[in-house]
């Protein structure tokens, strides 16, 4: 489902990082481990199409995203890739429900409130759907971020340090939900982290 070949990135013209090749099938999951500054986030941004790769190939499904134009990448990303960031940010003027409706729209999908409602229920935040995101706790916000990553039923879910701001109890819950939902949608899941609490849960690990 997601495959990289000879991917590397050059910072400021001289500092080059070569990334190991990745090859994951549908529904598979993987942990990308590494200390700060080792290029984890860069790799995630490359995989997520937030940055255009200068060298090497990234293929998601049948699409070679390293060959897409900027606008092609925007469209592809909205529909096929769900990304969860370390610190959850939302459109602060909107409620949880409205944020997710916007995500559906931007992904080119039809608005489907009942589907969002169902997803929020599964993530145990159904009662928060009409709250403004800034009034939620960290754990709740991260769940909404998961909901946003999942709402368009993407092929690939990328998570960048999703648990670093959470306590043990929330970390456990959030990761469990993330795995569970990714499995339900049969999406490929890649988690980038330096959080040792997660190591035990994943067999498939790459150290950068």
């Amino acid at each position, binding site marked *: 489902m997601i495959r990289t070949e000879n991917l590397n990135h050059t910072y400021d013209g001289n500092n080059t990082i070569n990334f190991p090749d990745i090859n994951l099938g549908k529904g598979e999951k993987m942990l990308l481990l590494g200390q700060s500054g080792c290029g984890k*986030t860069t790799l995630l*941004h490359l995989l*997520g199409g*937030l*940055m255009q790769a200068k060298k090497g190939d990234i293929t998601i499904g049948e699409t070679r995203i390293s060959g897409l134009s*900027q*606008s092609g990448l*925007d*469209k592809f*990303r*909205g*529909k096929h890739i769900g*990304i969860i*960031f370390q*610190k959850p*940010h*939302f*459109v*602060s*003027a*909107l409620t949880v429900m*409205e944020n997710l*409706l*916007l*995500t559906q*729209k*931007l*992904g*080119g999908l039809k*608005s489907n409130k009942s589907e969002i409602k169902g997803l929020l229920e599964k993530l145990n935040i159904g009662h928060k759907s009409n709250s403004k995101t800034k009034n939620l706790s960290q754990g709740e916000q991260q769940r909404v971020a998961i909901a*946003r990553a999942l709402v368009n039923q993407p092929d690939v879910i990328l998570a960048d340090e999703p648990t670093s701001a959470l306590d043990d109890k929330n970390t456990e819950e959030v990761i469990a939900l993330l795995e569970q939902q990714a499995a339900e949608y049969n999406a490929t899941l890649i988690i980038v982290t330096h959080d040792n609490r997660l190591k035990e849960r994943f067999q498939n690990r790459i150290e950068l």
Partner: protein
Amino acid sequence: MSLLLLSWKNLMADKLSTLLSLILFALGVGLISLILLLNHQVEDKFEKNLAGIDLVVGAKGSPLQIILCSIFHIDFPTGNIPLKQANGLKRHPLVEKAIDLSLGDSYKGYRIVGTTPDYVNLYEGKIKEGKLWENTFDVTLGSTVAKNLELKIGDTFHGSHGYAEGMEHDEMDPFKVVGILEPNGAVLDQLILTNKESVWAVHDTHGTDPDSISIDDREITSMFLFFRNRMGNVQLPRMINENTDMQAASPAFEMARLYNMMGQGENLLKLLAIIIMVVSALSIFISLFKSLRSRKYELALMRVSGATPAWLFLLIILEGLIIAILGYVIGMILSHGGMELLSGYLTEEYRYEFTGWIFLKQEYIMFFVAIGIGLLAAIIPAILAFRTNISETLSEG
């Protein structure tokens, strides 16, 4: 969640700055529109009331005062002129037509004008009920007078001396309403019309026997002159001012002077309105710029979710446009509503009717200017939004 709705929600998320921008924009638009409305209606009334009068002749004094008093019935007379001299002017070969006016009395704030039916014809006044005055003490009422004083045909009243209430000529025969004019938008609406003899009769009672005054000793307040050709405008004013005790006042010249004087104040107000508009554009710009900085993650996230740069650009532009359009609408409501409120006061003060329910061509043009200002204020923030670098922005936070 449409683009427009999202723009609106973003604006509503920071109600205070949105309100400030809106108020400033509406004030600027409203002030300009109010100036235009007032200007248009004052000039419109003035033009209508000038009715092609070439020259007004009155007693020596301020020519502007003669015009304001005789044509617009705003100011007080400069005095009276002898009827004999006035009649002499009427025989001048360049004079085609003349209309006499005798002022001096009023009834409940409305002026009683002694004149001839020519005065009604000058403004194309039409009879709605009854007839024009025929005998002494017959009066024909302008429509506003009849309406506001609730006078009907056959009603009688005593006029009071001068233009304030309280000095009624109680000892005299009362005026009797014989006719009411249709509303026609000119000064006629505000007047009580009768013949010159009625005005004379009222004032003769102050101890003199009416029959003892010969026609040669009669006076009138002023006289409108209409010339056969433009030579009249060249010759007569000088002749009157130099050779008689009378004062000639040219409506065209005096009105130009008046507009010029009003124009100074008007320009100052316009300048003020433009400054407010500039400040409001700045306020839109600053609040968009500020909110953009605190929303940069949001913008990057929307890009992550599939928004194109053009979409973000439009989002910000729409925020500017919404303020501009709403500000324009609120400004229009303020100016037209304000004009309608003001019209009550203006009518009372100047006995002219104004309305808030007209829309001028310049106001349509202002709509496009408003949109232009909204665009201008939003364009730089919108370009910044367009250029959002997702990866960099997200790595920062």
